[in-house]
């Protein structure tokens, strides 16, 4: 009976894991990068100096409100993010349909830094939760895949329950190749189980509403009774509001009320100025805010939400988004995210290894191998391609944020085409080696490109640039090691 259960669970784990894993690996990888979205944006906008401890002045805030007004005159809904320890600049951002992009201002003088236009780390954040496919079908698909991940974790636990305790840290990378991959899959899954489980659960819970909406999927019966009023598209405004009153006293009052010493968000409606609590203080991701009149700056209201259900959702969001996390905890999130990605990538490879001989390498198997190659190697290649594009494209190029992203998808598409061609012509092994070799070159050479581009000084924010370059170099080295291993005979 128990063995039958394991067999059934094995089938479920294999197929749900493989089909969902093809996309989940990319979702996990982009989520891992999104842990450092601010730092990636800083790397991708090297013109903005990351000088710590610069005091925010009323003149800078005045310049920021004028920038907001200018954006509103263009029909864009803009907001201000105040400097924080993590991001010591003043940003005036608007939503471009996918990411929040905009000007970067000096918090002391209010002068705009001549930064290059880029989606930055926001791209990975958007890709992580919507695959850049919007609420429908993007978020819906990602949430459904989150459910699949929970199923795969549950079935995986049933399969491995006997070996869970004795094989807790068993890893045999020098053993036979299939065994080494299974061990890698198990060790990533077991050691990082708490993280992967809570990320899968919280990620699914945050957007559960798109799978189980309060409104019926088919609104035909309600269409007659409720006439929908026309709404403003997200990130747009119908008309610009008046110029905001001086923000300095409002921010001081809001910070005092919200107990949020820095890094607040300032939003503008036609009548109100809303100052939000920073996400950096505590694991509860609240949307508490203090509202003032946009005409004369008088206090309107303070909005805080404390019911248990709301607090629970705030905690779920806070733990998943990790915006509260201090640097060390952020690195632990990053490491755990990498382990989750490795879990999925190794799972895909184990799936192929188990079926290579029995399938006779028929068309479907070759297609599965091409898709795996596109996920496991193609996605990192495209990611590094995005960083290369950021340094290689002219800084003043108009619409360069979209060009960078187009290049990302073009490169990923090329990898997919290459993988398909190589796999379908029964040359999968050289295909793996070629793509891994390309990845190794792109990763190892990125620090060199960063160095020769002379796009920034190494005085301020050197940690950001060095960490990014080091991680790219490390990924290149890992790819190089894999390429060399693939040249040798299978153990």
């Amino acid at each position, binding site marked *: 009976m128990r063995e039958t259960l394991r067999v059934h669970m094995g089938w479920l784990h294999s197929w749900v894991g493989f089909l969902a894993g093809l996309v989940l690996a990319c979702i996990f990888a982009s989520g891992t990068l999104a842990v450092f979205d601010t730092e990636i944006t800083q790397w991708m906008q090297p013109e903005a100096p990351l000088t710590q401890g610069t005091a925010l002045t009323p003149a800078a805030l005045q310049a920021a409100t004028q920038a907001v007004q200018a954006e509103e005159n263009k029909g864009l809904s803009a907001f201000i993010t105040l400097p924080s320890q993590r991001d010591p600049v003043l940003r005036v951002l608007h939503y471009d349909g996918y990411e929040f992009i905009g000007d970067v201002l000096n918090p002391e003088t209010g002068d705009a830094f001549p930064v290059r236009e880029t989606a930055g780390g926001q791209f990975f954040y958007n890709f992580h939760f919507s695959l850049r496919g919007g609420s429908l079908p993007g978020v819906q698909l990602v949430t459904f895949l989150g459910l699949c991940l929970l199923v795969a974790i549950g079935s995986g636990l049933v399969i491995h329950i006997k070996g869970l305790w004795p094989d807790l840290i068993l*890893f*045999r990378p020098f053993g036979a190749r*299939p065994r080494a991959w*299974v061990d890698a899959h198990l060790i990533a899954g077991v*050691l990082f189980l708490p993280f992967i489980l809570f990320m899968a659960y919280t990620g699914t819970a945050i957007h559960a509403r798109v799978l189980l909406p309060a409104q019926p999927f088919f609104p035909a019966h309600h269409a007659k009774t409720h006439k929908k009023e026309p709404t403003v598209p997200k990130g747009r405004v119908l008309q610009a509001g008046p110029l905001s009153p001086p923000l300095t006293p409002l921010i001081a009052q809001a910070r005092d009320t919200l107990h949020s010493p820095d890094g607040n968000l300032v939003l503008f409606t036609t009548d109100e100025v809303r100052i939000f609590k920073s996400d950096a203080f*505590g694991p509860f991701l609240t949307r508490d805010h203090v509202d003032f009149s946009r005409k004369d700056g008088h206090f309107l209201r303070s909005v805080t939400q404390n019911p248990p259900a709301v607090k629970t959702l705030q905690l779920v969001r806070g733990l998943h988004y990790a915006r509260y996390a201090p640097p060390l*905890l952020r690195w632990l999130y990053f490491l755990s995210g990498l382990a989750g990605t490795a879990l999925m990538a190794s799972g895909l490879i184990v799936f192929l290894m188990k079926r290579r001989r029995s399938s006779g390498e028929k068309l479907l198997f070759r297609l599965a191998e091409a898709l795996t190659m596109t996920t496991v190697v193609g996605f990192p290649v495209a990611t590094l391609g995005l960083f290369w594009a950021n340094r290689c494209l002219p800084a003043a190029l108009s619409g360069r944020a979209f060009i960078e992203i187009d290049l990302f998808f073009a490169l990923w598409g090329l990898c997919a085409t290459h993988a398909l061609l190589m796999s379908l012509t029964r040359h999968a092994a050289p295909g793996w080696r070629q793509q891994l070799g390309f990845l190794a070159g792109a990763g190892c050479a990125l620090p060199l490109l960063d160095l020769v581009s002379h796009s920034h000084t190494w005085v301020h924010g050197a940690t950001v640039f060095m960490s990014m370059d080091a991680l790219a170099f490390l990924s290149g080295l890992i790819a190089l090691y894999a390429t060399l291993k693939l040249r040798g005979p299978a153990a």
Partner: protein
Amino acid sequence: MIILLALALWSAAFWCHECLQPRTRAAFPHQTQSVHVKQIVRALAPCVALIFCLRLDTALGILYWLGLGSAAGLGTSMLMAMLKHKRGLARMSKPPL
């Protein structure tokens, strides 16, 4: 410092856990007394690490504890794999798949 200590405690617990497994016991023989010590370390080290993490940060201590545990487990498993490889025991395993 506390973080390093917690990491070391987790690593010690994982190390003892692996040493107590029959497959490793054959490779690294030890005395009965040391078995008891390893069992105690395996049980107590994570608890002490938890206390340290909670002292470091009451709200986020549990997250540090879990994250450090995973990182320590990964590190210990790689170290153990390399040691076994050095002793020529890497291929002592179940048949692959």
